[in-house]
């Protein structure tokens, strides 16, 4: 196998790819996320966000005082559409006279 250093295993984003993004002029957590897809897989950034911040602090593209993670949105855990829709169906039934 090719030797790679992973930051985000869900979306297969490596340190080399983040350095490539930095070389293109991207610097912040949000920019790197949008360019590489880091943090957008099944774990939703639980494994990689802090690893990315540690790397960017080390590279000097961000400062520790103001750094923030990217926005956290539901679902934080896997949930099926069937389950979510049963909640919607229930609410609809209650609204109807």
């Amino acid at each position: 196998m090719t030797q790679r250093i992973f930051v985000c295993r869900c979306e297969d984003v490596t340190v080399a790819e983040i350095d490539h993004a930095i070389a293109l002029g991207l610097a912040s957590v949000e920019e790197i996320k949008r360019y590489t897809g880091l943090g957008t897989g099944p774990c939703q950034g639980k494994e990689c966000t802090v690893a990315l911040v540690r790397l960017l602090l080390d590279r000097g593209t961000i400062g520790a005082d103001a750094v923030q993670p990217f926005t956290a949105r539901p679902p934080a855990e896997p949930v099926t559409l069937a389950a979510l829709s049963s909640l919607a169906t229930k609410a609809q039934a209650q609204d109807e006279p």
Partner: protein
Amino acid sequence: MFGADPLLRARDTAPLAAERRLTILYDDRPIAATRDDTVTAALLRAGVVATSRSLKYRRPRGPFCLQGDCGTCLVRIDGVPNRRACTTAVREGMRVEPQNRVLSGGPDPTALVDRMFASNLDHHHFMVRPKLVNRVMQEVARNLAGLGTLPDRPAAPARCEEHHPDVVVIGGGRSGRAAASRLRAAGLDVACLERREHDLGTAVAHAHAVFGVYPAEGLVAAMDTAGDGDVLRTYRAAHVLLATGAREVMTPLRNNDLPGVLAARGLAELLARTGDVLACPTVVIGPPSLARPLAATLGADALAPDEVRAILGGGRVEAIATSSGKREAGCVALASPAAPASELARQAGAQVQWNGDGFAVVRDADGRCGAGPWTLWACGEVAGTTAQDAADDGERVAAAIVAAHRQGTIR
């Protein structure tokens, strides 16, 4: 290889009582398991470490965090894809199958992707033009990059339940359990929500995976997939206490994704819970202050990250290349300063601040970290305490909640 080189084995070699033994199927082959096992524990004991392939480079992947945080132990269970093996309890006759593979049995041809793109694969520039080439590439990529394949049959609708406790405690670890029992002792109605099926301590009623905190709706929503059918529970409460703990952060090393590379924190907890011991040469990689004590507990060796050149192996960990040579290893445990698990706190509107290890919830002296449809509180490692102090912190914040709740009730 199937069933080769187990990572774990039972400490106690005496045969288990018949009622404790059960059998699950992995890829149509029977695997012995113990009641209360997670699927991952049973697989690691059977020597199965790789259970899927990654989306882009098609590399073999298996469990890492062992506590329901990462995304690589996803398997197909009883015809349903994307189930977390590490938080799912075994059941007699359970059918577990690997996912994201192209062919069953034999080598996977898509593994070539990893070799073909030895340097970066930048999807913003790769096969973007001409249009036709892009269309073909998109079609192939979409098929390869999907997570598993569709379930055998459409999912049945979930049963919905609404709950109105005084306090919702999110997390049933050290701090959450301590807080919940203190709150209950004071006569409050408490829902303590822990997502791990196998971690059902006395203060934890059931498996509850909180997937969303919706401040605008004043709602905490959790899934329960542990029983016969899925249950979606919603909670409205006067107080929400975040006790989501902390988690391992991936250490940047060459081939840190190889099956057999596990989070040290999760591994130590798994061994403590199951009573298993490591069955293969294991190396803990991390800062000496963390790695050495852990290695001593696990009966493993310790290395600092800067001593490691690469983790080596074909489909799983086989050795570690260090600055002074090569050493054999079947398992690598990565240890790094744990980072607060603050996603749900952020969903709830709490502020977080970088504390050197991760993003910790910012709270006042009592433990309050926000207001809205409820009073928001945080305790334990998510608020930046150490694991050792987490239980005490949980009790302290619980006492503040009891006081605030009584005041609110009197008013």
